[in-house]
């Protein structure tokens, strides 16, 4: 399996090449180079997956394969290694990342055609792909943190790709800072965890060896074990990257980046890094801090519901998709949160990973479809669309497939994965299951609202008729739609499970039937409201004005963040500190200077150079001393 490191290395080389020599290349060539390199990486990933899943099974359990080299020494036990850990989830992620990235590379040749900085764009895409691949194959938590930061910065660079646009700059800054804040939790979590366990290595941490955690035994803080705190802090890192409530605020703004970037980073790969992180450490969570898992499930459910409600009223199509992404990642988190470790209990874990896989495909498809639409009408607003079905046939059909998948209609892939999450959730807590089912219904509703508002509804007048995207853009659409169509029946439990042993999936037909029914009702409702132009949606909006506005404004969370950063941190902390520094600390120093100056002014009269004055002082002094001697 040694060759797998080439999968990671190739995009890095491509980044260096395009970054340093890109200016000298023709834009088209840069695009071809980037795409070709990714194609090789993808091919190798498929090979690795095939090889791993066919050969690595020992005694019914997939054995991880790893290699690494020392990168930096800290202490005797703690050191950062860089390497490759190949196990079922890593292999699955390799396949997902290279596939989506390849599609996005290909798609971008058409989409970004003629843009300024085309080579730079491809260099950044390569950098991102490299970082993301490095993240998923990390052998230890510190390697993951390294690549975690690198994906963060690639995301920053790509969101701010149109750097002359102030909104894009603001969005990129916001994304980086919010995730950095979350990463602080991650870092402190790593420090805590490594302090007590004395290792960064995933293999050791997840080996189920309870003696590792002996050192921390009994150490508690505010009624919770210290390992629990460490894991909760690490989860905060994951929640930041995966846009969990309330750290999700950066993701909708991140849509300022080019649309293919949204598809790759902010839908399919980077935003699931948090899910991947929890999955990677799942045995530790399950064995050492089951409370934190419950917290994860609750955070996931709240996020999921919140984002679905907000998505119902947004009018920018990319934002609808962004909130939909947040909501779906919430599903994955719930899946992990409710899962057990072994055998049948591990359904949630398996389902979560499955959903990660299917979601990556159909959400990338949705974003790329949205890109094709934006390409055609030059706007993100639903109001400028409508009736596009005649003009964009390929986009429309592929988009419809993705909508059906995310809504959970069989036999599309989303049905299977989401249904398993729901089944696991109901098994864990019927209340949580009900919430998630309702959210699934909302999902179907807002997706079909989106679909109808774009392709049906009232036709908008265009200056020139919108036309279908070029071949380089439609091929990825068709490919992803194909995957979405056929991925459902993949026996995922055979490959990716919480205990790496085979797991037999059997559909829970009561849950499945109910969720399909809910989805159908929601779709019917959306059809009723949005298929033809109608006044009902507006009337509904006015009669629930408060709720509508609140949801449209995303429940004022952005305003709250703005208040905290601008008013509290900037004006409330930084300004006073800067003032204090200049006027109090520095003032004291200047005070010393002024004081010495004053003193010297006061006594410099003695050094006037006038002999008469000196004589005068001598005489007076003598007189004074004489008097003193005589009378005392």
């Amino acid at each position, binding site marked *: 399996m040694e060759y797998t490191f080439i999968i990671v290395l190739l995009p890095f080389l491509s980044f260096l090449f395009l970054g340093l020599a890109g200016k000298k290349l023709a834009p088209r060539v840069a695009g071809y180079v980037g795409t070709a390199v990714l194609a090789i990486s993808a091919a190798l990933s498929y090979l690795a997956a095939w090889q791993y899943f066919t050969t690595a099974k020992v005694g019914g359990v997939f054995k991880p394969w790893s290699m690494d080299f020392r990168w930096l020494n800290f202490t005797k036990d703690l050191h950062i290694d860089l390497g490759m850990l190949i196990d079922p989830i890593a292999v699955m992620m390799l396949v997902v990342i290279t596939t989506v990235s390849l599609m996005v590379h290909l798609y971008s040749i058409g989409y970004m055609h003629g843009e300024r900085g085309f080579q730079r764009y491809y260099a950044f895409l390569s950098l991102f792909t490299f970082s993301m691949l490095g993240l998923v194959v990390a052998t230890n938590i510190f390697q993951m943190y390294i690549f975690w930061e690198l994906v963060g910065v690639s995301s920053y660079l790509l969101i701010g790709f149109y750097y002359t646009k102030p909104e894009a700059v603001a969005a990129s800054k916001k994304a980086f800072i919010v995730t950095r804040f979350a990463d602080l939790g991650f*870092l402190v979590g790593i420090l805590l965890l490594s302090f007590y366990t004395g290792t960064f290595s995933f293999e050791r941490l997840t080996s189920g060896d309870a003696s590792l955690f002996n050192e921390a035994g009994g150490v508690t803080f505010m009624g919770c074990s210290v390992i629990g705190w460490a894991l909760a802090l690490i989860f905060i890192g994951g929640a930041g990257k995966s846009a969990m409530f309330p750290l999700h605020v950066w993701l909708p703004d991140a849509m300022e980046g080019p649309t293919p970037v949204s598809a790759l980073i902010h839908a399919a790969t980077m935003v699931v890094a948090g899910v991947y992180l929890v999955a990677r450490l799942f045995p530790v969570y399950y064995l050492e801090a089951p409370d934190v898992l419950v917290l994860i499930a609750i955070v996931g459910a709240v996020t999921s519901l919140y984002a679905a409600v907000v998505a119902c009223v947004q009018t920018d199509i990319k934002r609808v998709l962004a909130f939909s992404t947040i909501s779906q990642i919430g599903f994955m988190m719930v899946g992990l949160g409710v899962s057990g470790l072994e055998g049948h209990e591990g359904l949630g874990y398996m389902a979560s990973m499955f959903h990660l896989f299917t979601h990556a495909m159909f959400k990338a498809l949705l974003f790329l479809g949205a890109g094709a639409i934006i390409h055609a009408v030059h706007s993100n607003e639903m109001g400028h669309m409508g009736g596009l079905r005649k003009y964009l046939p390929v986009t429309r059909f592929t988009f419809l497939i993705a909508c059906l998948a995310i809504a959970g209609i069989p036999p599309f892939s989303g049905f299977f994965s989401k249904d398993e999450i729901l089944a696991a959730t109901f098994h864990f807590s019927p209340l949580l299951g009900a919430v998630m089912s309702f959210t699934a219904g909302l999902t179907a509703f807002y997706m079909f609202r989106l679909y109808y508002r774009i392709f049906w509804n009232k036709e908008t007048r265009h200056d020139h008729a919108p036309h279908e995207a070029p071949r380089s853009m439609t091929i990825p659409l068709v490919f992803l739609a194909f995957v979405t169509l056929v991925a459902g029946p993949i026996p995922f439990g055979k490959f990716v499970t919480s205990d790496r042993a085979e797991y037999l999936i059997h559909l829970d037909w009561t849950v499945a039937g109910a969720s399909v029914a809910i989805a159908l009702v929601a779709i019917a409702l959306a059809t009723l409201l949005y298929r033809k132009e109608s006044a009902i949606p507006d009337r509904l909006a006015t009669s629930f004005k408060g709720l509508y506005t609140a949801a449209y404004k995303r429940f004022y969370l952005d305003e709250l963040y703005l208040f905290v950063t601008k008013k509290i941190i900037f004006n409330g902390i930084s300004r006073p500190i800067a003032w204090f520094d200049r006027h109090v600390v520095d003032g004291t120093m200047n005070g010393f200077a002024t004081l010495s100056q004053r003193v010297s002014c006061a006594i410099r009269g003695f050094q006037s150079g006038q002999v008469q004055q000196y004589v005068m002082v001598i005489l007076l002094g003598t007189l004074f001393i004489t008097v003193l001697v005589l009378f005392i």
Partner: protein
Amino acid sequence: MNFLSLFVLIPVLMMGGLFLAKNLKQIRLVATAGASLLLALAVGLVVAYLGERAAGNHEEMLFAAKCLWYAPLNIYYAVGVDGISVAMLLLSAIIVFTGVFASWKMEFLEKEFFLWFCLLATGVFGFFISLDLFTMFMYYEIALIPMYLLIGVWGSGRKEYSAMKLTLMLMAGSALLLLGILGIYFLSGESSMNLLELAKAHIPTQAQYWIFPLVFVGFGVLGALFPFHTWSPDGHASAPTAVSMLHAGVLMKLGGYGCFRVAIYLMPEAANHLAWIFIILTGISVIYGAYSAIVQTDLKYINAYSSVSHCGLVLFAILMLNQTAMNGAILQMLSHGLMTALFFALIGMIYGRTHTRDIRELGGLMKIMPFLGVCYVIAGLASLGLPGLSGFVAEMTVFVGAFQHTDTFHRVFTILACTSIVITAVYILRVVGKILYGPVTDKHYLALTDANWYERTSTVVLILAIAGIGLAPLWLSDMINGSLLPIIQHVKL
């Protein structure tokens, strides 16, 4: 004649050459040749040092030599290096080299500028090779004095005020230092100035309690220890580019290195008992500097405050008194030196074109000068600790090391210090977003040009060094680690 003395000799010879130089071309020739020679020498030293170590030489100081200088007081000219000084010498040589290129175009009095510049370099190199407290102190002073003239004459803005402030504050620091050195000399019972001999002797614990703060604060002033850091913003803002580079890049390291080599090494008991006071102060430096940087509008002020924060982390880590944290401190010195030099070089280049450093007036420069823009982004990313660049390696070593301390107090402060990574991101991205991105704020900027060859040389060398440390830190970290062992054993009670 020991080859370490070349580090002092070359700058002195350069001064002679500059004195004889007849025109600008010759001045540049002398400066470039000398600086390149120093860089080559430093690289050679690293190779030779690693070679010696690999060959199994376990002496604490390699290439040591000494000769008697003033017998009545037992003052020797003693030199020698361990992994830490080797790293610092390499840093200094890189900064001097790039500083020469950054001051390729001086407006006036080129010869005098470079003369003082070389004198400054003499002091810096001399300080790092010295093993004798007296010569160390002397070189320290040699490095400080030229600052006054370099800022006062070639500076900008309120240069006289800044130069005066900087010199006086640092002089006050060295007064404390002198007291401390005298205390060490007389109370150690050794009547020696040699560091290694002093380390073997034992300074009475009572004496340590008053000498340690003197020496630590004395050096700490130069290392921007709160609340004695206020010379830094004004000083940097007024200094010319190359001087800012050398000052923030190397001179401030004298402070950290001195604290480490003299204060901690010679007075381990006091260090162990008094560390908590200074941990609080340096902890404040780290957070306070970062918050102050958020609201500044002058590019140089931002970097000066950022230096307060980053150098605070150096002293903070040294005070943790364990191997990993100290290793992190040395790495942080290197990393901070390189990236701050890069920052100041770039700010100088931008200022030279736009004639303003006010971020409210700048904007959209990325489009006009992409090379400088990209370099600025790289410097910013290094500063906020992006993996792959030097800042990450240093900060993580500090954090992990400091967190290994068994006291909860130290760990809590480590977590507080960790928060600086977020605040750093805020002020770095604010600046980058403001001056590089967005629309061009002034149409006069459209006519500006990108970097020249000498500016490119300067920035590329620095970036290569930053990325070099960031990508392959193991050799450096191991080199420092090896040299830390005797010190740690000494410091452990």
